[in-house]
């Protein structure tokens, strides 16, 4: 026997090589997915940042972030190619009457900015999350703290599970049928809030349930044994410890709400609206107005206007801003959750 080998000598066998190959394949699958995700992300970021950032101070394209969208006009003037936004072009025509006769090409939404869309999206997210959180946390409290296992609870759980699988466009149809038509709210913030809130409800309930479950049973028993009522126990000794978890997990719900287009297409979103949401005559009109929203604006600018070098700026710019907002929210939720896991251990 060769003295270098012993009974447990590692051998290079066919099976070993086979294993290595298969594992490499799994690894490839994993990194391929990450690569694709990264590819999409970088493409949007690379082209979008050209619109949103500038080389000179203040480095951010303030106009893009603070103005409303307008049409872009292209024309030749004194041998030079000029491009102007709607307002600028009108001023230009006033200054140079001859310009009115110049043949122009125009692209809608391709100049100006996306400020009303950002505002609309923020409003939609805030309102729907307030509704979803108050409904969802209460529902979770019931399911975890009060409910005895019975047909009613099984029914509720089944409903939540199924609600989670309903396509977002169906929520949009439902919101249209119920809020817009039946309640007569028309295309409005309120209709969008409720539609989005119901859509995200299963996410919030599940997240809240997880957080409530993570509070040890001892806290409840200890409190009840001291003669606390159920509600006192929940309010003082369960909710405070569950709340950070509930809120962080619900941030993921925010990302979902902010990212969805289909539910707001017929319930809350306008293609274009000149007034900003707070420019209303009466405070109650605030709730019954439609708004512009980033995701819907992306849909509009990517499908309703041609693709060329002039429209690309607004397309990529909007997509970039939107992606960054959603990505920040998602990252925030992931980071918060990981921190929370480390901090709360009892």
């Amino acid at each position, binding site marked *: 026997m060769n003295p270098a080998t012993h009974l447990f000598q590692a051998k290079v066998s066919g099976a070993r090589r086979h294993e290595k190959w298969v594992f490499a394949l799994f690894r490839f699958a*994993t990194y391929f997915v990450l690569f694709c995700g990264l590819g999409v992300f970088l493409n949007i970021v690379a082209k979008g940042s050209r619109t949103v950032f500038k080389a000179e101070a203040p480095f951010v394209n303030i106009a893009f972030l603070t103005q409303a969208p307008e049409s872009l006009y292209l024309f030749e003037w004194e041998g030079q190619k000029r491009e102007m936004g709607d307002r600028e072009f009108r001023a230009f025509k006033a200054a140079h009457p001859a310009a009115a006769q110049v043949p122009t090409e125009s692209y809608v939404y391709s100049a100006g900015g996306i400020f009303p869309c950002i505002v609309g999206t923020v409003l939609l997210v805030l309102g729907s999350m307030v509704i979803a959180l108050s409904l969802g946390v209460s529902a979770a409290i019931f399911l975890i703290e009060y409910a005895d296992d019975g047909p009613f609870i099984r029914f509720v759980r089944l409903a939540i599970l199924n609600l989670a*699988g309903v396509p977002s466009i169906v929520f949009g149809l439902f919101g249209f049928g119920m809020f817009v038509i039946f309640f007569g709210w028309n295309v409005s913030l309120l209709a969008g809030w409720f539609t989005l809130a119901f859509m995200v409800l299963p996410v919030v309930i599940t997240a809240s349930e997880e957080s409530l479950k993570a509070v040890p049973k001892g806290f409840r028993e200890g409190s009840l044994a001291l003669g606390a009522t159920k509600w006192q126990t929940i309010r003082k000794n369960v909710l405070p410890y569950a709340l950070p978890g509930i809120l962080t997990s619900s941030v993921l719900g925010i990302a979902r709400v902010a990212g969805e287009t289909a539910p707001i297409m017929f319930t809350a979103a306008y293609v274009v609206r000149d007034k900003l949401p707070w420019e209303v005559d009466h405070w109650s009109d605030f709730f019954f107005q439609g708004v512009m929203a980033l995701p819907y604006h992306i849909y509009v600018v990517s499908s309703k206007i041609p693709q060329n070098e002039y429209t690309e700026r607004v397309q990529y710019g909007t997509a970039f801003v939107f992606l960054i907002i959603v990505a920040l929210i998602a990252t925030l939720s992931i980071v918060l959750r990981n921190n929370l896991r480390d901090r709360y251990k009892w």
Partner: protein
Amino acid sequence: MIESPSALPNPNFAVQKRRLRFLGLTIDDTIRAFFGGNAFVAVVVLALITFFLFREGIGFFVQNRFNVELYRQAGLEYVDHIRRQADDHAALSRYLSDLRLRQFSILTEREKRSLADTNTALAPFDTFAEQFSASADPLRALLSDLTEQATALKTKFVVTEDRKEERRQLLAVGKLAEAAAVEIVAVDFARELQPLIAMLPTYQTANRDFARTLAELIERPPALVQVELASRLATFQRFTRDYVAGFPAIERAMAAWDYRQPVPVWHALTSFIFGRQWLTASFWQDWYGILPLLVGSLLVSLVALFLAVPLAVGAAIYVNQIASLREQRFIKPCIEFISAFPSVVLGFFGIAVLGQALRTLSQQSWLAWLPGFPFSERLNILTAGSLLALIAVPTIFTLAEDALNNVPRAFKEASFALGASRLQTVLKIIVPASLSGIISAVLLGLGRVIGETMVVLLCAGNRIAIPDFTQGVAVLVEPVHTMTGIIAQEMGEVVRGSVHYRALFVVGLVLFLLSLAINYVAQGIVRRYRISIG
């Protein structure tokens, strides 16, 4: 010091006396009821979704039956017999042009003939094709006459119905004089259809001429420049003979046609479920058949799953069983991050980058062996499917990883203790043990992609037709429309309460039920095959 127990026995011990009550409920009961009510919201929402989809959608079947009935009564069905005949003829003509194209490319590319030379060589064939095409001219003229008559009749009827509705509304608000002023002329279908029916002998004569012309034409086919195409010509001849042989059947069907034949009630349903056409705002006849949309949705979803399942399950196995802890900590948040990509951004990416990139890729000569390559449509099933795969991967990955995680450690340890390698353990113990979870993950992924709207709306190409399955796998590079896409696209443009509007709600209902069914099956699988230990 601490209060000592009062004298024994104390009959008032712990007997409740002083809790506030509303309607017989203590505060705690009220709070409980409040939370219970909130939990019930989930049930209520689900019920409301069902209710409102039905509320808006159910009228479709009544209206659609009316729609189908009108199709018969106004004679459109009658005329469509001839229309189909003309369409079939056009298809045969297209076959001839295809044949010409093949000859043309053989002559120019293989034999390197000049353009003029080629055209001269093909001249006899062109003459034949022209004659073939012209043979249907009398038929087409007849068809156009009949179409006009039937359309006029249909319009007349619709106008009458509108007037009736107008009068009803006027009566409802009490404007009797105005209501009486609304002129309503009842449509007498029997009389109005008379000219149409009377056309039959003319048609039969024309048809006989047509059949004779075709038969003569087909007996003296042009000489082909290439012998290898002879089989195609023979096929063409066979098709044409079959076509001509079908004429008597058409005539019989037309002779037997009767506008009074009632349209069965279930026809409204079957024409929706099995309808092969989704045709709206047409001058002739609207059809609401869900089949093209359903097929589109399924094809796109299948492509997405075909791409996503191996990647997601492979990644789940890798992360859960093979990767180091550090890699896990890096990969999991990254994939979660991908799941947060808004679908509309992905759709935009498809339009702006991926569609063009895939088309360019398909035109590379070294990839020409792939079925369907090269393709010319930028937006098609493949483009939408690839993007949907990116949406499905995080869903499937997360759930499959959970399932793998739930496999008890003991299984793995027992396998290792028997001297199994890691691969053997993974493939023979871990994956089979979590298979139910993985399958349900895939199903939920299917639910996710079939309900996805923005990507398919932007990237699937939006052509409402059942793609041509005869080309095999190459069908996957055709544009389609989907159920979600059609709702998103047309909902904003339809008249509220119209049959089209209601049809969209019924599509939503189908989508809703489909997603419930997928969910149900997925949950059933998990429940049924859950591992129970201890």
